[in-house]
């Protein structure tokens, strides 16, 4: 069966295979010693984002490599879809990235299981707000540090609104003002334009509503609001659907993940977003979009400095010291922040904000204005929610959707949500 030719091929394959084995053995031995010697260190960093973010992050990492000969950073970047799956799977296989960008909603799942290194050991906290660090502290360890902050905002399609002869709310406006405005838009447009996207399924919107009533969405023990507050919130949106001010349930569902797309598509005149998304949204439409704070009585009531994303170090990393050096560079180095800019939100370190905001366009300037006002007057950021909170966030949207499609009344839905969420949080 073996021809002469095939045998030759086999021989070659055997040589290649044994060479590969020897190489991997060599790799094993070289990765055992850590730190102190002059052995080259290879770190792996993972993040999600768009092309712009990939480009600036890569150049910041190039800079880091220039300043730290002996450390190379392998870059593992992708879009947001599938990011969590990838990280979790790599953890299970014991080869997590050393340093990675991470988001708040799942932070506790990882930190409470002892998977994240304590950052207070190798990363400087000079210029950092103590409250902000408290928010990322789990079981007494600093599990993460914000890699970009934002705050809640509302956008209005000024061009479309003025074409209808109306004025968009601005400055200090209440939830009732928003409801009235939204209904007017629907009438003035002859039914073709909703005043606001239905936001009853957004737990991030409800969070502000609850804070404005002296409560919170979740605290370290679980749900932190009363059933009445939730029922009122869902009733508010039910009234808006009845008046025609809000989008119809099918449209709402279509734009559920990215309500600002409904404004870009010309389906609704206003919606909620996070301030770091504003510049991108404005760039996608020729219409003038204005950015305002959230509705609600009292200046900046309920809004807070929100961690848009974190930077963390894996406990699996064999190079803790080098990893901390990289995190410190990305968060605290002026030059690094000059390169990174405001792509991920505002830097949490007050000392580097100036470097990061140099050259910001007028949209970003407007976002900075709102953010700085929240820094002055806003509410404290919520403490990390317990494990299982991700499922509760999903449940919130599901129950709200049943109200949108008229399958549940706001009061019954609130009761049902409280019970189911409690059982999920166990």
């Amino acid at each position, binding site marked *: 069966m073996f021809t002469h030719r095939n045998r030759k091929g086999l021989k070659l394959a055997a040589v290649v295979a044994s060479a590969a084995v020897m190489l991997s053995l060599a790799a094993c031995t070289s990765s055992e010693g850590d730190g102190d010697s002059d052995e080259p260190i290879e770190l792996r960093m993972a993040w999600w984002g768009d092309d712009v973010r990939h480009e600036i992050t890569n150049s910041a990492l190039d800079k880091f490599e220039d300043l730290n000969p002996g450390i190379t950073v392998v870059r593992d970047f992708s879009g947001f879809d599938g990011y969590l799956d990838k990280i*979790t799977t790599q953890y299970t296989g014991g080869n997590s990235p050393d340093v990675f960008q991470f988001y708040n909603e799942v932070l506790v799942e990882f930190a409470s299981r002892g998977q994240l290194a304590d950052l207070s050991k190798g990363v400087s906290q000079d210029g950092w707000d103590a409250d902000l660090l408290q928010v990322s502290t789990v079981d007494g360890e600093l599990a993460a540090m914000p890699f970009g902050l934002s705050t809640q905002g509302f956008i209005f399609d000024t061009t479309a609104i003025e074409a209808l002869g109306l004025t968009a709310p601005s400055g200090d406006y209440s939830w009732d003002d928003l409801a009235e405005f939204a209904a007017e838009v629907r009438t003035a447009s002859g039914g073709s334009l909703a005043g606001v996207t239905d936001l009853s399924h957004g737990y991030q919107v409800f969070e502000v509503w609850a804070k404005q009533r002296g409560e919170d969405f979740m605290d370290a023990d679980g749900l932190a609001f009363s059933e009445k507050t939730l029922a009122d919130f869902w009733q508010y949106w039910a009234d808006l659907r009845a008046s025609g001010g809000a989008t119809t349930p099918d449209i709402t569902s279509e734009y559920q993940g990215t309500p600002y797309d409904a404004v870009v598509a010309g*389906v609704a005149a206003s919606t909620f977003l996070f301030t770091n998304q504003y510049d991108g949204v404005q760039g996608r439409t020729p219409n003038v979009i204005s950015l305002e704070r959230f509705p609600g009585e009292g200046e900046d009531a309920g809004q807070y400095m929100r961690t848009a994303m974190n930077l963390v170090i894996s406990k699996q990393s064999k190079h803790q010291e080098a990893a901390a050096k990289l995190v410190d560079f990305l968060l605290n180095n002026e030059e690094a922040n000059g390169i990174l800019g405001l792509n991920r939100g505002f830097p949490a370190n007050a000392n580097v904000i100036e470097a990061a905001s140099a050259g910001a366009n007028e949209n970003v300037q407007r976002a900075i204005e709102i953010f700085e006002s929240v820094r002055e007057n806003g509410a404290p950021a919520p403490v990390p929610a317990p494990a299982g909170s991700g499922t509760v966030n999903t449940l919130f949207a599901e129950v709200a959707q049943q109200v949108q499609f008229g399958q549940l009344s706001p009061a019954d839905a609130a009761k049902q949500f409280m019970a189911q969420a409690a059982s999920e949080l166990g």
Partner: protein
Amino acid sequence: MIGFFVITLGPMLYSLYLSFTDFSMLAAPEWVGFDNYIKLFTNDPKYLDAVRVTLVYVLVSVPLQLAFALAVAMVLNRGLRGLSLYRSVYYLPSLIGASVAVAVLWRQMFGSNGLINQILDWFGIEGMSWIGNPETALGTLVILNVWTFGSPMVIFLAALRQVPQYLYEAAAVDGISRWGSFRHITLPMLSPIVLFNLILQMIGAFQAFTPAFVVSGGTGGPVNSTLFYTLYLYQRGFTGFQMGYASAMAWILFVVIALVTAVNFWFSKYWVHYDD
């Protein structure tokens, strides 16, 4: 052989073990006995939703898809010029049907500003968001599956070529109508191929994931109307950190698919005609 044990059987047995544990993927699995299985059937209404949605999808989309594939195959079999071109064109959707790109296209077509509504608009009909409405969202996914009729069609086409021409000639001499010869010659002669396609497509439909994931943005919404079994499994495993629970779901799906396939084979003796 080694590949089968290492890559297939090993992980399968491990997942069977995991299905009896509480496993977050970030900490070691903890043995919980039958708890996962018990919770699935007694204390998880969303699971029952997922089962219902998946059964409807399998029972509606597979017969429609096969009927459509057979119809197109028969048209193509009547000796069209440029057959190979048509065959390729109709086969294309099968190649790309389960891809993310097509699911995104579907989202655009059946969205509120989509192509379907623009066409309806010409006739003065006011559309809606077909993917945002719980009554129509699953329907758009059924249409997507029917649209990927190409691979059963190619198999049907090959089988149609094998049906001896003299049977039709004999039928024509006896004055049997075209429907009659379809009913009494084509279908019986094709029945083994129908069975083959049926089993293959049903197994595929039970495991459908991508279209629902993309069209609903990963939620299975609106109101769980597109919550395919595998999508819910994914949600539990990867966003809920309950891989033990997800493994239990996977094993139930595996057993159900095996049973359905066995039933298909068993029933086939009543309708499948083997020519030997």
